């Protein structure tokens, strides 16, 4: 695999982790001493993606800004990897007028039209929109693709099935990516389906399906490369499941008392693992590593500052934007 790409994958994973750590810090900063979900500069549910960076980095490395990406309630890693405007995304998470959605959406509802990025808090229901984006790309004769991310819990929702069937039928340029982090909140995968790999579900739609078993960013990158190429070539959708890792709680404030796998979790962190691999391969050294971390930190803190310095929306405008302004063309 190309060295630049490998370093780039690492750099992207570090940027994402740095971002999530900063959000974690900001989120909890003003919810002390007693955690109150609605308090602070960043209120509401917060689903962070630490541990799942390989999926976002590995898949989105194949995409350009003309390609569409849709993510679920846990969207930051995917948004960052797809190049969503980091300042505006952060401002949205802080509920500011400069945010992607002018503070109307929040962290589960990020829309960046420039990056054709969207996400949704309803499990699996973000997926069908990707079909429509792919449909538009197809009809316009482009080779652009749409990628729909969802968790392994989402694969048991009706929208998953309908989306795969329709995408396969119309040979839409879509890649379906299932992030299997073992859990749907407190429900382990074993209590949500009896199939060990969602890869096998590809056969139910006559499309390729495969599972990347080890949260390896390079494994993801390779699988996604095949799927994206297939979609660009007009051969239709593919399904990829990645066995990844939920490093933290389902959402912030999750006591995780139900979780029996916690002990093993830190040792499975994909970033140090990949760091060692690239170091052994001579592509990274301590200096380069700290430069990458530093750059990430600078970028992230700039976004956080941008957000914090941005104006808070005025309650008087709460009723705007229900309908598009120029109704008639």
């Amino acid at each position, binding site marked *: 695999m190309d060295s630049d790409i490998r370093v780039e994958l690492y750099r992207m994973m570090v940027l994402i982790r740095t971002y999530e750590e900063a959000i974690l810090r900001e989120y909890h900063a003003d919810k002390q001493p007693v955690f109150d979900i609605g308090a602070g500069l960043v209120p509401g549910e917060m689903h962070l993606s630490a541990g799942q960076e390989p999926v976002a980095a590995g898949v989105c490395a194949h995409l350009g800004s003309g390609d569409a990406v849709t993510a679920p309630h846990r969207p930051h890693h995917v948004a960052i990897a797809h190049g969503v405007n980091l300042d505006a995304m952060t401002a949205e998470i802080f509920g500011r007028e400069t945010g992607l959605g002018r503070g109307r959406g929040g962290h589960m509802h990020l829309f960046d039209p420039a990056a054709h990025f969207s996400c949704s808090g309803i499990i699996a229901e973000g997926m069908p929109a990707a079909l429509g984006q792919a*449909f538009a790309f197809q009809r316009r004769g482009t080779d652009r693709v749409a990628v729909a991310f969802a968790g392994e819990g989402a694969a048991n929702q009706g929208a998953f099935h309908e989306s795969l069937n329709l995408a396969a039928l119309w040979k839409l340029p879509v890649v379906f990516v299932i992030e299997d982090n073992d859990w749907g909140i407190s429900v382990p995968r074993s209590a949500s389906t009896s199939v060990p790999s969602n890869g096998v579900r590809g056969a139910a739609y006559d499309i390729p399906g495969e599972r990347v078993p080890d949260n390896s960013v390079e494994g993801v990158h390779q699988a996604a490369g095949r799927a994206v190429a297939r979609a660009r070539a007009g051969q239709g959708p593919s399904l990829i499941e990645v066995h990844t890792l939920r490093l933290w709680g389902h959402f912030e404030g999750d006591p995780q008392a139900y979780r029996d796998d916690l002990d093993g979790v830190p040792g499975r962190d994909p970033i140090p693992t990949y760091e060692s691999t690239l170091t052994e391969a001579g592509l990274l050294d301590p200096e380069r590593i700290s430069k990458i971390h530093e750059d990430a930190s600078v970028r992230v803190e700039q976004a956080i500052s941008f957000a914090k310095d941005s104006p808070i929306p005025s309650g008087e405008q709460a009723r705007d934007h229900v309908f598009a302004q120029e109704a008639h063309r």
Partner: protein
Amino acid sequence: MTATTSAPTTRRLTTARAMSEGIAQEMGRDEGVFVMGEDVGAYGGIFGSTGGLLEKFGATRVLDTPISETAFIGLGIGAAVEGMRPIVELMFADFFGVCMDQIYNHMAKIHFESGGKVRVPMVLTTAVGGGYSDGAQHSQCLWGTFAHLPGMKVVVPSNPADAKGLMISAIRDDSPVVYMFHKGVMGLPWMAKNPRATGPVPEEPYGVPIGEAAVVREGADVTVVTLSLSVHHTLDVAEEMSSRGVGVEVIDLRSLVPLDTATVLNSVHKTGRLVIVDEDYQSFGLSGEIAARVAEVDPRMLRAPLARVAVPDVPIPYARTLEQAVLPTRERITAAIDGVLSQ
């Protein structure tokens, strides 16, 4: 273009033909418009809403879908976000329960959640209504359900001319529009129909503004606010009552969202008496909303208690005797008007 043309016209179409003509004209004008749904192609729509479109525009723009409402409505949303203008048919409004999340959490909210940056110019067409013994899962109007949830406009034409004009306005609107057509006004050859299901329709494209009610008959004694098939029942009753010297003013709402409160208030202000005729379920719906729009301005506008003729909070029964007992029939409308006038 945005107002009903006043050009004289003699050509008469069914509501179904008027709808599909409106769609065809917009498809001709704008490459981005396409039609999608179950049986919209060769069949032409189970209730004729897409008749002839496949022949004219081919299978790349008139697409039959699998029975996967969540997927294909969602597909419409995604295509709209990318700038296309999909017209998506949900065969019966009764089926909303399999795909409502796409409709109300996505189609209706994306524009708002994006702070106005993403537009979803999509039309969701759907058939409503009973009266032909199709049972509890195929006879509902449910416009109250759609109108309650913010972010989508809701239009409900009662006649061919409005059907075409509202369709064109809906397609050109940059917000999502739910377009609910009653089977009983479509003028289908295989279903009993009101004679007004066929009527004059201008040939050229025109819009009927979304959010404007029509006073379809003037009268001084009582206001009846209604919509869809019930407009015709009410007009029949009004005609009959005028021979008894009673002046019934009939308002066809045409749009529920936005709701034309001013037209309702003007009329009630004049007549002082109000009957609401609504084929949807009575409670927590349209009829209550009309009551509130009056009572929050001036309850004393009403010289007598208002009356509601709606489905009395029961599922629509199958047997004709039972179904007719719960639908807003001419008999029930007459009785309600008489009741309001007697007080």
